[in-house]
Every structure is written in structure tokens, then in C-alpha cells.
């Protein structure tokens, strides 16, 4: 199973995302922003970072990179695509997901271990979880406040497209504590927190198993691999 990891200028978490794919049992295939070829991958991850320095708006310039054209085409046709943090921002700018992200309500960069509820365990990226399951993965962002108009929010809720919701205090002021959403078909998912930083004991968030033992993020990557086998 080949999972493409896109690197834009300013991407930070591509290596962690590739490592997460390998730990989940997949082959990580590096994809370059200027190469409009998906190299026959079975899924794509848009990792976090600050593509193009977040100039203009977060994700706004990356959205027009050559590699995005085949990704948008393929995503519309059902290719599983996961956008993490800046990758989520790119997916909204590309209109593959609704809404947008603005600066955090607290007006500071937020970095913490964040508890989430998996609300929809039927998407290509969440079927290793159970609906209602609580997971903890790192959150780190400046422009993480998810916004959309009330009609769009109602539609997302009504269609079960709120995939992850923040537990406890809303860290960035996101509407309805939304941490991640999907497209209607469930193959495209975007979320602000970082599952790729919680995939290996010793390097993840604190968990019941001990300090830094949390590997709750691995489920997103095993989900897409099982989705492709199924």
C-alpha cells in the first residue's frame, strides 16, 4: 500500500508522517509540490507545517502548487486524502473541505496534548476507531480556529461529517469545538491536531501506559491501510 506524503516549501511534519505510515505497515512515497504526478499512490497525506510561510493565508498558496491538481482530481474520484494542520488548511483552500481556519481565539500559538472524541468511525481514515472513542494526540497551531457559517455547520453535523471534536476546553475557539471534518464521501479528512506525532511508545503524549507512551494517532494510518485492503 503506497501512501504519498507531500512536501511543500515550509512543510515540517512530512518525515513524521512518513514514519507514521511505515509504523502502520504502509509504504511512504515522497511527493514533491512541483511534480504534478502522484506516482501511483493509493492515498495521500498533506502534512503540517507552514507551507510558503503561511503568506497570504495558511494553505492559500500551496493549494495552487502543481501537485495539488492531480490530488484534487483523484480526491473527487475517491482517493483517500488526509490533511493534518496546515494540510487541513490546504484542503479548505482547495474547496475539498468546507469552512476555513483563522487565528486562534486566544491569540497565541497553542501547543499541548489534546483529547479528542472520534465522532465518525466510518471514514477512510477513522475506521480503526469506534464512534465515541476518546483519543489523545498533540495539538500545535497558530491559525487553528475552525470557522464556517451556521448553515455549513448544521450540514456537517447533520451528515455526520464532524469526525473529531475537542474534549474539555476548546483550545482555539473553533466553532462547535470541531477539530476535524470529512467530505461527503468520507475519503477526504482534515484535522488540526497531529496524529503522526502519537504513533510510537516513548515519543507520544502521556497515556495510561506511562509517560510519552500514547500511540492513539496510529489508528488514522492503520484505518486507511485496512480501507484499501477491504
Amino acid at each position, binding site marked *: 500500500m503506497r501512501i504519498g506524503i507531500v512536501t511543500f516549501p515550509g512543510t515540517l511534519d512530512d518525515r513524521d508522517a512518513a514514519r507514521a505510515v511505515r509504523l502502520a505497515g504502509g509504504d511512504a512515497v515522497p511527493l514533491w509540490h512541483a511534480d504534478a504526478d502522484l506516482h501511483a499512490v493509493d492515498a495521500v497525506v498533506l502534512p503540517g507545517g507552514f507551507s510558503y510561510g503561511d503568506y497570504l493565508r495558511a494553505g*492559500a498558496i500551496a493549494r495552487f502548487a502543481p501537485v495539488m491538481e492531480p490530488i484534487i482530481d483523484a480526491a473527487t474520484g475517491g482517493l483517500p486524502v488526509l490533511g493534518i494542520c496546515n494540510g487541513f488548511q490546504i484542503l479548505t*483552500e482547495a474547496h475539498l473541505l468546507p469552512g*476555513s481556519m483563522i487565528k486562534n481565539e486566544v491569540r497565541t500559538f497553542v501547543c499541548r496534548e489534546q483529547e479528542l472524541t472520534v465522532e465518525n468511525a466510518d471514514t477512510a481514515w477513522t475506521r480503526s476507531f469506534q464512534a465515541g472513542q476518546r483519543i489523545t494526540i498533540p495539538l500545535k497551531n497558530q491559525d487553528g480556529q475552525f470557522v464556517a457559517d451556521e448553515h455549513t455547520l448544521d450540514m456537517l453535523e447533520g451528515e455526520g461529517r464532524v469526525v473529531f471534536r475537542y474534549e474539555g476546553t476548546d483550545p482555539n475557539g473553533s466553532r462547535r469545538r470541531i477539530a476535524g471534518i470529512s467530505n461527503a464521501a468520507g475519503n477526504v479528512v482534515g484535522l488540526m491536531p497531529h496524529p503522526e506525532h502519537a504513533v510510537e511508545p516513548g515519543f507520544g503524549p502521556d497515556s495510561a501506559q506511562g509517560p510519552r507512551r500514547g500511540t492513539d494517532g496510529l489508528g488514522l494510518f492503520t484505518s486507511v491501510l485496512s480501507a484499501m485492503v477491504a
Partner: protein
Amino acid sequence: MGRVVVDVMPKPEILDPQGKAVAGALPRLGFGQFTSVRQGKRFELEVEGDVTPEVLDAAAQAAATVLSNPVIEDVVRVADIEADAAATVTSTGTIA
């Protein structure tokens, strides 16, 4: 050489954290009369030759597709900066 100016502002219903931060700093410097601040963006697009209606149309399209995100922002102005300046001079002259 012509120049088109495009102004983009956060939508009124969207909280503007940057404007809020600036608004918080103003009273500390003695500017207590400003009750709120909203921060937007100004783009200056240069073209060879004059700013024709076609150039303005293209600028408006760029403003709608790239320079702004309609979910969170409004394009509040797309204008020929030289023509605007000339108009300002004329109106000032008329008033005088």
C-alpha cells in the same frame, strides 16, 4: 505602468484576533478614542501600460479566487490607484 489596488477585509461576523490585539494596545499608548480595530490586507498589482477595464476585471477575478477566501474575507475594493488619486485631487479642487 499602471497599478491596481485590492483591499481585503475579514468578514464583519468573523472575529478578527489581529485587530483585537491592536485594539488592546492602543489605549496603553493614549489612543483611548478608538473603540474597535479591524485589520485587513492591501494588495498592489502592477501592469505594463494603463489600467484598462479588462485589467480591472482580471484583478477582480484574482481577488476573488486567490487574494481572498470568501469563507472568511470580503473584497472591499478593486481600483485603479492612479485614477483614484486623480479623482481625489479633482474633488479637493472642486471643494476649494
